[in-house]
């Protein structure tokens, strides 16, 4: 039986440890956006021993490059981008305290393994539902790397942002389990 959890960031170890693949999560509070180009810069900073533009401990990164906001709106369309492009960088951020990643699509085995080691989870938001996802985003401001355009790091204030747990801290994978349940012989 799956459960629905409501969390406000920053997340604690005990928050994410109780989650299981298939559970639903409604996230509120401050989260950060980053795509491949921003991740590369974050990892460069870590390798040089320099501070990151935001506190990463207990935090949530949403893999998204939003469309521009119309006047009077917080943000444009803001659905998840495909997560595997962030796989080379994700374990380093988890080692620094990142607790959850929101995206869509499969993760590499080493990323799933890092989630069990560092107690972090991977959540899927509905890909291609950019207009719907934008409704949960109440504030948005560029935090860093404005030169990257849609790939800049944004600070988002979200209210009940909906997502589903794909990879939990025990190594379960909804993408594997869900497909096995519905696969039919050809």
């Amino acid at each position, binding site marked *: 039986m799956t459960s629905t959890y409501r969390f406000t960031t920053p997340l604690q170890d005990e928050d994410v440890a109780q989650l299981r693949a298939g559970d639903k999560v409604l996230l509120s509070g401050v989260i950060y956006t980053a795509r491949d180009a921003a991740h590369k810069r974050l990892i460069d900073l870590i390798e040089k021993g320099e501070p990151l533009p935001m506190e990463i401990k207990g935090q949530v990164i949403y893999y*998204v490059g939003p*469309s521009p906001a119309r006047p009077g709106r917080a943000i444009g*369309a803001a659905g998840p981008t*495909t997560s595997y492009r962030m796989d080379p960088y994700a374990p380093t951020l988890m080692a620094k305290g990142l607790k959850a990643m929101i995206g869509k699509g499969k993760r590499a085995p080493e990323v799933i393994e890092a989630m069990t080691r560092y107690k972090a989870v991977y959540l899927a938001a*509905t890909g291609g539902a950019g207009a719907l996802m934008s409704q949960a985003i109440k504030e948005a401001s560029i935090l860093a790397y404005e030169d990257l355009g849609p790939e800049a790091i944004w600070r988002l204030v979200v209210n009940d942002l909906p997502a589903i747990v794909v990879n939990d801290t025990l190594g379960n994978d909804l993408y594997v389990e*869900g497909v096995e*349940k519905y696969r039919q012989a050809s």
Partner: protein
Amino acid sequence: MRDIACADIVRTVKQLFMDANFLLGDDMLAALEKGRADEASPVGKDVFDQLLENARLAREEKIPICQDCGYALVFVEMGQETHIVGGDFTEAINEGVRQAYQEGYLRKSVCHPFTRRNTGDNTPAIIYLDMVPGDSFRITAVPKGGGSENMSKLFMLPPSAGLQGAKQRVIETVRDAGPNPCPPTVVGVGIGGTFEQCALQAKKALLRPVGKPNPDPELDALEKGWLAELNKLGVGPQGLGGTVTSMALHIRMLPCHIASFPVAVNIQCHAARHKEAEL
């Protein structure tokens, strides 16, 4: 000879890309409704509900259906009895794209491949020009997302692979893509032609309205059979498991070289956006 003014091309291209990004087509709305009815998984049904709600919000609030407002593909069918006046054809299309993405608050998603520097206005458009008889002038605008494009494949098979081999490659491509291209998808398949034409046929196959049968009965039968196989994979909506992995599979075929059997699979996410206009 009928004159086609570049200013009209600019205006039309601009309107088409804005409409495509905000107004999901009636064929796709019907396909999403059908998918929701057919889907066995409760989580999968939830996904269809979200996608229908997303389409409604996009339409009513003028928020893009997806934040990936796509690479701008433009297909032009130009009557040989038409004459372009008042400017440069390519520049007129690029200007239409530029204005749509700027004034429509659409995301600019085109960059230099090495430096990754964004071109800033979603140009250059990719333009395909077909010359047709008469004096018609038809423009189709296709904002194509990157996530589903990344999961697309081209196979230069030996002729001995046969239709069974082609079908196997199509199924494997969709299976291995799993959740990445945002299923439920529409799958475009090109068979035959040359290396580049095969891929283009797969792309053009995506432009046929979903629900409209293939006019070739042999291809129509293949489409139905292969789609049924895709939906046995279990991938389901968003790859979370389910019985509707793809809403449609479309095939376009061309003759090929006696040594070749090219098969291209172009995956399109559920936000299958395209708008057409006659000038």
